[in-house]
């Protein structure tokens, strides 16, 4: 896809309108650009972010290159992120990372040939009380063992869930949590983009929040 659909352009304008200065919309628009390309940040995507923010494509690339979550090299259907910062490291996070890399056949920092998995080790994701912690498309699982990490990867590969839910994965593959999570979240992630209503990146069983964007929007924004 090269040009954004009318629906995506409409969403882009709504994101720009959230700020006093349209340049501030660069970050959400970069996520939107990724969402339209199944998680990849493309040159075309960045060019369209530039159009909506009044920046040059070079300025947009300069911003995008600063942040680790903008995946200019492309990303798989499932981005598996293993935290290896101090609290997770102390509780053997590197064994979890090795298990993920081995089970998926994808080494740290790369995407598998079939596009199913990207694997990365990441710095602290704020789950230190439930170390070691893993995220799939930024949806969190705490207290993961190497064996459970392998099961998680098989579950993703065999089931290919459209939406990944933190609570579901925690129940299946998690253990010790940082704190009591409370009730289940109704929404999960459709791609390697943080799932939140205002980006249109969250999907699930809930009705859309009042004043927000439609919650259950497929990547690409549907019909025009």
């Amino acid at each position: 896809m090269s040009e954004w659909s009318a629906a995506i352009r409409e969403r882009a304008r709504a994101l720009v309108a959230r700020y006093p200065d349209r340049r501030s919309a660069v970050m959400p628009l970069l996520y939107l650009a990724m969402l339209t390309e199944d998680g990849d940040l493309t040159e075309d995507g960045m060019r369209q972010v530039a159009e909506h923010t009044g920046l040059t494509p070079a300025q947009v690339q300069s911003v995008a290159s600063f942040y680790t979550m903008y995946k200019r090299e492309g990303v798989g259907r499932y981005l598996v992120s293993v935290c290896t910062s101090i609290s997770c490291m102390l509780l053997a996070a590197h064994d979890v990372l090795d298990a993920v890399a081995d089970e998926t056949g994808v080494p740290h920092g790369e995407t598998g040939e079939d596009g199913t998995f990207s694997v990365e080790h990441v710095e602290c994701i704020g789950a230190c009380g439930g170390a070691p912690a893993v995220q799939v498309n930024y949806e969190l699982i705490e207290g993961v063992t190497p064996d459970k990490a392998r099961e998680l990867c098989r579950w993703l590969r065999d089931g290919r869930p459209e939406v990944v839910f933190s609570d579901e994965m925690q129940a299946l593959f998690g253990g010790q949590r940082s704190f009591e999570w409370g009730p289940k979240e109704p929404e999960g992630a459709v791609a390697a983009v943080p799932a939140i209503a205002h980006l249109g990146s969250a999907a699930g069983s809930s009705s859309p929040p009042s004043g927000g964007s439609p919650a259950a929007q497929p990547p690409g924004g549907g019909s025009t």
Partner: protein
Amino acid sequence: MTATSTKILTGRMDAHPADSHTIERYLATGGYEALRKALETMAPEDVAAELKASNMRGRGGANFPTGVKWGFLAATEPRYLVVNADESEPGTFKDRMLLERDPHQMIEGIALSCYALGIRQAFVYVRGEYPRPARRVERAIAEAYRHGFLGNDVLGTGFACDVVVHLGAGAYICGEETALLNSLEGRRGEPRIKPPFPAVEGLYARPTIVNNVETLSNVPWIVTNGGAQYATIGPETSAGTRLFSLSGHVAKPGNYELVMGLTWREFIYDIGGGIPNGRELKAWIPGGASAPWFVPDPHLDTPVTIDDVGKHGSMLGSGAVVVMDDTTCVVRAAMNIVQFFAHESCGQCTPCREGTGWLQRMLWRIENGAGRPVDVDLLLDVSDNISPGLKWPPAMTTICPLGPSAVSPITTITTYFRDEVAAHVEEGVCPLG
């Protein structure tokens, strides 16, 4: 009520785990009454005066008194409030809990702060790796608008307050307030030279207050009960309760809301359940990865207060306590932390950009049996170029404190574990395997 059981921030989520994040539960437990009280009976400066009287110090890591910070806000319009929810300091997961489990408490704190400061637009900068907390906050904001606690005419008083959620995208440095502001403006998250401080020139070069999630979550209680009452909780210069994130080699990791003043022994052993698997305590980080570590002798019986930790050469920082048992290789642990800072360095300042990577490479070769006898002193020499004098609080050759933070584990292991570091070099192998 015992001294350590005071619950300002976590009482609701403890009592009502199923729905503490909903507006129904919040309203049923006294929520938004502080906002109503302030709007109907207090002038904005009265609210600010309560914050000043509370002596609360900011909970983001710098521990600067919030009421004093508010006093620096310049008068020109428009002004902004920015909530720092970019919690990324390794070991810290307290704000995540407040965002997920009691978002209305923070939102009421935002509305109260905006009223006190004459601000009508607030932004909540949530780190990109926190979509679940961000979803809860976004839903709570929508609920608050529906109930008239946010919007153009809050509770029919004419006070206007808008709140927008902004997601980060994976950059620790954006927790530094001026980097956060650049990021919110749609720029690379590089810290700015201060002065000017954000209170004078912040977001869009406008006067801006940047406050942490936990800081703002305390504001409703302070307005309800009075700043003087808050100031009576805990030691004089460490007033109030504090959320500690406990992790690592400890039996009961988790977030604990504590009144400061207990000892480290009480915290780690009585509250945290001690060291599991029959192991011994070797060291702990008292305030996040940026803080120099503590060791049982001489720190275990010192008090957990902002000032006492400072006096002993470290900081309470973000309240993140990471415990290491006697199986921990200190070189490997230090390398992990230095690697973190090397990865997160924004690259603006040479001592940090080059120094953190150099320290990381030296630690790697020491840990992997290729260290040279000169490397221990070289670690300190490079560290001295990042933070001259290796003193505490650290001196800086950089725009922000990230570079000096990478020095903390180096000074720790060369002070308390010099023999263990030297053994790596002499034996050509990590003695802990």
